[in-house]
């Protein structure tokens, strides 16, 4: 899996095209490759309850649709893979 800025806990989205790095306030893009300061943010794709089934779609606990890129910082079910 390639880690990108959008998967980092320091990524702050301005919109669907771009964001800000919380560490230095520089403009970055969601699909930029991660830098040295990268720290993974909880997302479905990093969760042990998530099963990928097709591109950009899977299931949570194998019983409800879920999508890999959803942020899960407030999900009680989240468990790191």
């Amino acid at each position, binding site marked *: 899996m390639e880690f990108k800025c959008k998967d980092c806990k320091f990524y*702050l*989205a301005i*919109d*669907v095209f771009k964001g800000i790095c919380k560490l230095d306030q520089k403009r970055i893009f969601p699909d930029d490759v991660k830098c040295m300061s990268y720290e993974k943010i909880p997302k479905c794709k990093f969760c042990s309850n998530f099963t990928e089934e097709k591109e*950009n779609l899977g299931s949570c606990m194998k019983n409800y649709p879920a999508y890999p*890129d*959803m942020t899960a910082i407030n999900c009680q079910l989240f468990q790191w893979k």
Partner: protein
Amino acid sequence: MLKEYNYFGPAPDPEVSDRETRKKPTKRAEFLRDLYFEAKSSTSMEFPYWYTRTWEELDGEIPIIRRAEALKSGFEHLTPVIYPKELIVGGKAIYLRGSFPMPWLSEAFYLASEDKLYKEALESGKLTADTVTTMGQGGGNVTKSAGSVISIAGKFGLRKEELPVLIEISKKWKDKSVDDIGHKYEQMVPDYKDKEEIMRSVICMFDSGYTLPQGREVINYYYPLQWGIDGLIYICEQEINKVAGNPDMDRLYFYRSVILVLTGIKNWILNYSKEAKFLATVEKDEKQKKEYEEIARRLINISSRPPENFHEALQMIWLFHIAVLNEDAISGLSPGRLGQILYPYWKEDIDNKTITKSETLELLECLRVKFTEIDCFASTGVVGGVLSGNTFNNLCLGGLKKDGISAVNELEMLILEAGITCGTPQPTLSILYDEKLDEEFLLKGIECTKTGTGYPAWVNNNVAMEFLLNNYGSEGMQPEEARAWSIGGCLETSPGSWMPLTYKNKLYYIPGGSAPATSVGVHFLSLPKILETVLFNGLDMRTNERVFPSHNLKLENYNELWNTFKDYFTRAVDVLARTNNIQHDAWRKISHSIVNSLLKPDCLEKGRDIGQMGSRYNRTFNVESCGTANLINSLSSLKKNVYEEKNFTIDEFRDAVLNNFGYRTALETGSYSLIDQIPSEKFDKYKRIHKYCLEAPKYGNDDTFVDSILKEWEDWFCGMCSNFKSLYDMPLYACQISVSTHGPMGAVTLATPDGRLCGTTFADASMSAYPGTDKNGPYALFTSATCWNHSLSQNSQMNVKIHPSAVKGREGSRKFLELIRAYLRKGGFHLQFNIVDSRMLKQAQKEPEKYRGLMVRVAGFTQYWVELGKQIQDEVIARTEYEEV
């Protein structure tokens, strides 16, 4: 043709004039506004995902509890986003201009890529308005898909990673959404097929039940300000103890649903505080770090208890504003008389020297940016064709206090100043004009108007109160309470109440909204298009489909024409009112308003949500019209040319209309205003008839011939609405604002008897003259506009364009104020200005990248020029420009 057509007064200077008043915002607000300018409208699936998942998990639960749990889940799972330098935090979704789809209202639109569903929706008339709407091509609109981003409705960007789940979630609402359930039952209305024809012909623009079921109303911030979130939860718990097991059990479920939703909102706020704390830990700049810590502390405080200072109060009302917006697709949730609501907090702070005026101004500027960030996710036809991307958060100033004295205060002066220094479309400002308001305040309003932002609107306090007492008197409204009114949405007169706020051991009566959406119902009816069907025996000549039954009349005299018009109009209102009632009934049963209800008096007292008439006032359904000036001018032309002077026959006229008076259509030319149209090879054949049409008496010139037609229309229209009932068994009232519908509705209408050409935009608003036809100056326009009693209608709307040179300097300001007073003293309801040189607008059309911040007034709202569709841009350019007042 007619290059100077749209000017009144001497020709403008050769140089393009800029606006006279120019001030800059604070550095912080400028930074945040620039961030806004950078941001594109973006949508995400977080909230709808969790809403839908929780909803499905609770299959079989009491509907309002199920809804509350779904909303709670949505709030609790939202990822908080705080931007650098923000002093007021919180947003609808994970982006700066964030929003999200609400498939529980309507899912067909999101499944548009699936051909079969799309075709079904188009056939039923639901999406017709989308196809004739132009969306602004600049600014923050994501008009095209590119790379990892998909454009939805020509405005919203969605990351492609989220498209599959959007489709998955939308499918779960098929046959279950408000749209689908409402549609299922509205087909049981005997003449339902007529409704489909009316929608397909774009005689009516949209159904409010599933598109924008709430909004066009004034929020009420009193309850959280007075009791805090924990206090409100405690009140509900006590009420549950009283009502559980006793008759009228719906109250139990309502109180329980309020507790659930408040818990969700509390956790949402706490999640924001955690994010602020986190940001403080990684922030290197000491000042910013401290600000994050203060944000966190403020959020923790207001997550449980009432605010203890102005800044906390501001933060709290902002979060509750967003909380309401996240429960439904809403446009026009107005903060109301915010300067009067927050005055107790601000006065205490300023007296104690815990805040300065410059700090206040900075906060108010930040609030302006936050309001401007609000986006409403809906279809192209609604967002583009009706709203022009606007969300109509109208902040009102002035008016009277509970005891009848002027309500103006120092904080309102600062709100006006923030509107000047930090020009943004939201919140738009309105001055509730009363003779008791002092001159200094009014001149401050003039200074703000002269910035060219399009606000404040000038609104007649007495006319509004008379309307309210006429319509809500039967529900107990007294003159004292009528004074608490405010504008909901762009220009919807909305009832209010005086709420007893206790702060620092003092009692204040603050105003707040006390009715649900005041503009739901029959939206919008195209008057010129209905006249077209009269002239063509019930047919829509654009699609060649039958809309109304054949009248088979020869239309031999004016009365026959006028009576047939009234008959068709009545038929349209009748069927649309009934089908709309069914949609709203589906809405209140599936998608209960809980957040908005807990804020509205007297829902908590009664234990009922607003869908169960929990509000103090409930007579809020209306019939909205569009194209008044074109209808009146057309009737005038037919009366004069066909029936009185017999300059041409009705058959000759029909032929001329079908040939667009010998011009190319707007669709062919790409220009939607009367100016700049191009003759075709048939020009000579029809120029005589067209000349007669153009020269017929026009509204706006103090001409009794045409003004008497206006008066007859207004008296009849305002009266006939009450023959129809809302689902709450209350009469409808008239509402006369065009918003942006005059663009798409004009686009589908053939040439009209007033000389307007096919596809061109109608006159804006309801009291604005058609561009270039008001040749006797503003005072003649005012006399024409006030030939009828404006308090018969929820509103009337007049937009005037003035060249900056006409109101220049202090003397210009005084003249300007007298101009406004002249109209309002005559009984006019609303007056709004574009102080702009039209040539600047033309330049902006050519070079939009140089005019990102340019704002104009459309019809009841201000919008960035670059975010308007071309239909509306052309219409604003074409408006009559007064070079002198």
